[in-house]
């Protein structure tokens, strides 16, 4: 017997069609046009990964060298656990990091049901219907983790796994402090013309006065399709810092809900994305203010190459009870040549007075004076463009520190080097 989430999701999945252009959130990501006919149906019908993988007792411990870089390291493949390492130091803090099958999701995750299915579409339902389980991190009250928790998901593209639905669930106890870095890669194996779908999700709750940093690195292969639905909830005076970096996948569609449930809570959402030739990246955010004096800020930046298309849809919603809200939303796009398209749709929906809210978006080309300046210092034109693009996007990494900052700067640098090749080709 599966849990409530899976059962409800299965019903929703059966009752809903694939989202089409009549659904505002999907209007610019027209799946029927972007994907060969039957791609999603084939992926949705592909058999779930073997449940034998789920036996946590058989997991191999990760190497001891992890202790230097991280607190906890969880390695999963197609959403199922391969290895879990918890350092001695981490054990001493009482942090719990484990993988739990969908049958036994913790109460804290089940409690999010109303939020998760508030405005469901079939892609979201698909995630919950098919996720075999979740990597779960529970930070005890007052624990301060001074090293990151690393979660690494690899979709092995061996021709069998056409679909995976990995999930990460984080509960930060009152007054705790923790950082989670979730990396999504694809294995090097050839996809042989197949278009696997990764339909991922993060849920995170930050109890009163806690500080939670979550970073997502999406580095999937170009042929892959990536869906992502995140939900973060911040209680009184809690702080959530979320960063998402999309440097892979030919089709990306995300939505991140930031629910500011507690007075004085704060959520900062940051993201960067690259849309190369024939790539379609559609990013969505919601800053949902439900309590007074909460602060939220979303900063998303994208670079689009000729033949690429990016979409950003962001909404700041201020509910009746959310007086003294302070909310900002910014989306900036760089168009790297003719035939690059960036749609930016920031919106405000404010139901109370006495708030400070603003949004802004820009789409433009690289500044010719900056380009010449770099060239006058010896940078070849292609390198000058790349350096300026990197500088432009790197603003979104300003809230990161240490290991996360290093990883994402490297991801960006490598992706831009590859991106220059697309632009030339």
């Amino acid at each position, binding site marked *: 017997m599966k849990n409530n989430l899976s059962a409800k999701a299965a019903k929703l999945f059966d009752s809903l069609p694939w989202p089409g252009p009549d659904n505002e959130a999907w209007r610019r990501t027209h799946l029927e046009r972007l994907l060969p006919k039957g791609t999603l149906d084939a992926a949705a019908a592909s058999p779930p990964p073997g449940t034998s993988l789920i036996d946590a007792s058989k997991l191999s411990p990760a190497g001891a060298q992890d202790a230097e870089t991280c607190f906890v390291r969880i390695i999963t493949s197609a959403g199922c656990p391969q290895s879990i390492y918890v350092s001695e130091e981490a054990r001493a803090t009482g942090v719990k990091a484990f993988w739990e099958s969908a049958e036994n999701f913790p109460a804290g995750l089940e409690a999010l049901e109303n939020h998760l299915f508030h405005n469901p579409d079939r892609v979201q339902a698909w995630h919950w219907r098919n996720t075999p389980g979740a990597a779960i991190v529970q930070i005890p009250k007052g624990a301060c983790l001074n090293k990151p928790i690393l979660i690494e998901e690899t979709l092995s593209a061996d021709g069998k796994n056409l679909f995976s639905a990995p999930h990460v669930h984080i509960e930060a106890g009152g007054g705790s402090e923790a950082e989670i870095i979730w990396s999504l890669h694809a294995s090097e194996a050839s996809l042989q013309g197949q278009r696997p779908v990764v339909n991922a999700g993060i849920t995170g709750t930050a109890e009163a006065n806690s500080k939670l940093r979550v970073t997502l690195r999406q580095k999937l292969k170009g042929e892959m399709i990536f869906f992502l639905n995140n939900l973060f909830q911040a209680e009184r005076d809690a702080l959530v810092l979320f960063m998402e970096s999309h440097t892979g996948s030919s089709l990306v569609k995300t939505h991140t809900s930031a629910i500011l449930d507690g007075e004085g809570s704060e959520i900062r959402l940051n993201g960067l994305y690259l849309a190369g030739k024939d790539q379609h990246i559609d990013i969505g955010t919601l800053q949902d203010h439900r309590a007074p004096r909460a602060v939220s800020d979303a900063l998303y930046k994208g670079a689009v190459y000729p033949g690429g298309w990016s979409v950003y849809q962001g909404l700041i919603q201020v509910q009746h009870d959310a007086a003294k809200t302070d909310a900002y939303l910014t989306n900036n796009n760089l168009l790297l040549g003719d035939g690059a398209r960036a749609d930016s749709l920031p919106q405000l929906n404010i139901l109370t007075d006495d708030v400070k809210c603003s949004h802004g978006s820009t789409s433009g080309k690289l500044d010719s004076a*900056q380009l010449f300046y770099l*060239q006058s210092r010896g940078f070849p034109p292609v390198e000058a463009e790349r350096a300026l693009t990197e500088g432009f996007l790197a603003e979104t990494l300003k809230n990161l520190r240490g290991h996360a900052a290093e990883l994402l700067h490297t991801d960006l640098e490598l992706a831009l080097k590859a991106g220059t090749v697309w632009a030339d080709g």
Partner: protein
Amino acid sequence: MNLKITNLKAGLPDKEILKGISLEVPSGEVHALMGPNGSGKSTLANVLAGHPQYEMTAGTIAMGNVDLTELEAHERARAGFFLAFQYPVEVPGITVGKFLKRAVELRRGEEGKFNVSGYITELRSAMDFMGMDQGFINRYLNEGFSGGEKKRMEILQMLMLNPNFAVLDETDSGLDIDALRIVAKGVNKLRGGKFGSLVITHYQRILDYVKPDKVHVMVEGHIVLSGGPDIVNELEARGYDWVKEMKK
């Protein structure tokens, strides 16, 4: 190294601004280029640096035995040409340290074998020499810098890149006397060897600190007068009207 400009004609696609400039700065010398507003001084600086906005319709530019005429901006830089900009742009997202490291690496042709610790020592000592706080290394290039800080950053770059020839485009404009002294100190540091320079200015003041070997005066896209440093005093005393007359 010497810079030789021969019959240079250039401008915007629909407007000729430089109408046949010939000018030679011999190796090791510093020359001043003066002239009223709109005479084409900054256009000359940009054309020499290879700005793609300007079109060159005639003439040649050579630095030592390198013909710059057909080279792109980055190739001129790597050959050892340097332009200190009149208005250096702000480049958010790229730190001074990272930018300069790459620029120095490109200039020295040391890709892959660049000595990073040597570079950092050199940079720190150049910053001390220019009276700049080490904190600038981690700041974004020119972002939020004051006018004087931007100009010092130009000279710092010049010291680090060690060019064969440098054009300083009104580096003195908008500087107070202390900043001016420091900028002049930077230029004078490179003097003595083969380094050559063309100091473009509107005012006499910087020439009190950077003594030119020769002075040229430009009016409406022509060099109308060339001579010794005395010209500076004459311009200061009489203004530009009499040289404008010479053009007619």
